[in-house]
């Protein structure tokens, strides 16, 4: 068995370990951007070597750009995205809200919609508004938005039937 050696309260230790409030938001964003680019490269089915060739970069530059410690320029990010046949925008959200879904996360939206039993494929909602990640404790805001649009859709359908 693992020896119990600590005098520190483990609750405090874990609270501290899992709390990133004090981390530099710039560092968090740098690694988050790099992580998203790594996922996008994988999602696109392109190897790092192929991408380097396409961009006419050395493989070492790709590694450097993707290691999360670099302050990437907009130029670098645009070049990378375009080489992968993607575009990007800045999507703002409140600090305590979840971000938009990524191209490799479309299943989460389907899952979410299925969960609330909205299975109509032609539901005329602004899908981007709902492309929010739902955590296990789904945010009240997202649910409200979906309910609002769903009710609007239902009203619209009833009107057109009449």
């Amino acid at each position, binding site marked *: *068995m*693992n*020896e*119990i*050696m*600590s005098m*520190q309260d*483990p*609750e405090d*230790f*874990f*609270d501290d*370990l*899992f*709390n*990133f*409030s004090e*981390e530099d*938001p710039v*560092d*968090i964003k740098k*690694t*988050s951007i*790099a*992580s*998203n680019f*790594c*996922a996008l*490269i*994988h*999602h696109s089915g392109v190897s790092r070597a192929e991408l380097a060739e396409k961009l006419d970069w050395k493989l070492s530059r790709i*590694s450097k750009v*993707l*290691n*999360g410690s670099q302050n990437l320029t907009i130029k670098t990010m645009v070049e990378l995205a375009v080489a992968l046949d993607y575009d990007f925008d800045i999507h703002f959200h409140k*600090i*305590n809200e*979840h*971000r938009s879904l*990524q191209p*490799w*996360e479309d*299943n*989460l939206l389907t*899952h979410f919609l299925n969960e609330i039993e909205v299975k109509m494929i032609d539901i005329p909602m602004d899908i981007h508004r709902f492309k929010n*990640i*739902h*955590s296990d404790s789904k945010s009240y805001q997202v649910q409200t938005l979906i309910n609002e649009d769903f009710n609007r859709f239902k009203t619209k359908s009833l009107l057109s039937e009449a």
Partner: protein
Amino acid sequence: MSLHYKHFAVTGHPKSTSTFAVTKNSWHVYLLCSSSDLRTCYIYNDAISLEKTYQSKYKNMMRVLGQNCESGKPLNIFYNEKECHPILTIKIDGSEEKIWRIRQGELRLCFVYLPPEKRLILLRLFVKNDDTLKRKEKSSLKLLAEQVITDNTRTFARRIIP
């Protein structure tokens, strides 16, 4: 005593909620404990004995791990080969299982995958100036990995420490 697990997720509302999210797609990261007492967490005991400079690096390493686990893409696409690779192989019931290591600076974080779900179990943390593991470290890792891989996954959820 049966193995217990502490789920690694973000706390610290509201700022750190945008650090990383754990979705249905994500790798779920757990810290291994030898009992329901958090003080028997192996990583906890390894981390509290770290020098102060390594403690902040360790926290950074965990944050990056969380971000890289968010998409649920294979973990090795976020690191280069030197940073994330299998270090040991063990044979369990005729099949080969791998123990993986993430290397960030002098820190070495060892883990195993625990299928069928997308679970990643952190075993031990070492500070090293080279890449060789001591015999004692190897045997400790192999023993832990074997216990985790042969653990009863049907009762896993009940042994997650809140």
